[in-house]
């Protein structure tokens, strides 16, 4: 049985590592309990299978996604960031956070097979895994400017 508090901390640690090393931004857990992300959002997600099956996702507003992409690509504040680059970058963030989390979980649950990431845009987006699943939600504050939401939906299997 995976401990939810432990998983929550590992998800935050993974996100911090990715944002600090590859996006060059500081992140921390949101102090407010609920920070709704208003307006259009991007949801980057990646699924995994093995002793755990489920989906890791990052959800953030358009402005936040644009800032993340620009930082990942090393662009200046006046540089244009293409829609494809923004979408691709958010997918990569989900992919790399999943990789970092997987490395942290390796000793506890063994190997996980991970899919190729996908990104969708819209409003009030939520992912779901059906009955018997658990959900970890971590809201992060990015440089005191943006809020993003990391979610981990998972179910332990008998594999």
């Amino acid at each position, binding site marked *: 049985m995976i401990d939810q508090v432990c998983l929550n901390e590992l998800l935050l640690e993974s996100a911090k590592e990715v944002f600090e*090393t590859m996006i060059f931004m500081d992140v921390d857990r949101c102090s407010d309990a609920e920070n709704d992300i208003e307006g259009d959002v991007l949801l980057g997600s990646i699924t995994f299978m093995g002793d755990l099956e489920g989906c890791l996702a990052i959800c953030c507003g358009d402005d936040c996604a644009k800032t993340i992409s620009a930082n990942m690509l090393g662009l200046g504040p006046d540089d244009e960031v293409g829609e494809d*680059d923004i979408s691709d970058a958010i997918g*990569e963030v989900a*992919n*790399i956070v*999943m*990789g970092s989390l997987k490395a942290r979980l390796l000793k506890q649950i063994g190997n996980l097979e991970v899919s190729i990431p996908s990104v969708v845009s819209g409003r009030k987006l939520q992912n779901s895994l059906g009955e018997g699943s658990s959900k970890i939600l971590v809201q992060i504050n990015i440089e005191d400017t943006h809020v993003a939401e990391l979610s981990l939906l998972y179910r332990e299997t008998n594999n």
Partner: protein
Amino acid sequence: MAMSLMIVDDSVTMRKIIMRTIKMSGLEFEKTEEAGNGAEAISKLNVEPVDIILCDVNMPEMGGLEMVKKIRKDLPSCKKTKIVMVSTESSQELIDGVISDGANGFITKPFTPEKFQEELAPLMN
């Protein structure tokens, strides 16, 4: 000595991020080439070999593991080419397997400019 580099990744954005990180690491390449998967990389390498290849593991059409085997088996012109895998996959079994198949190094994502310097500089000497 002027060195050439090929980045193989199905994500255009990731190829740009790797290029940016290499620049930040201080490593310099005279020529850089890109490919979206292993098959495209091999097709380009058949025309012009490179000194160093940075390659993702999971890609459509032909992944990095198959690409390494094919290069080592079928491309004698790339005998001296150094191949470094760049992936979120980090199991020791995978790393040992691909090194045994002929890769020269493994960088796990998330990566830093320092990590590229540490892995690539010895291969460039």
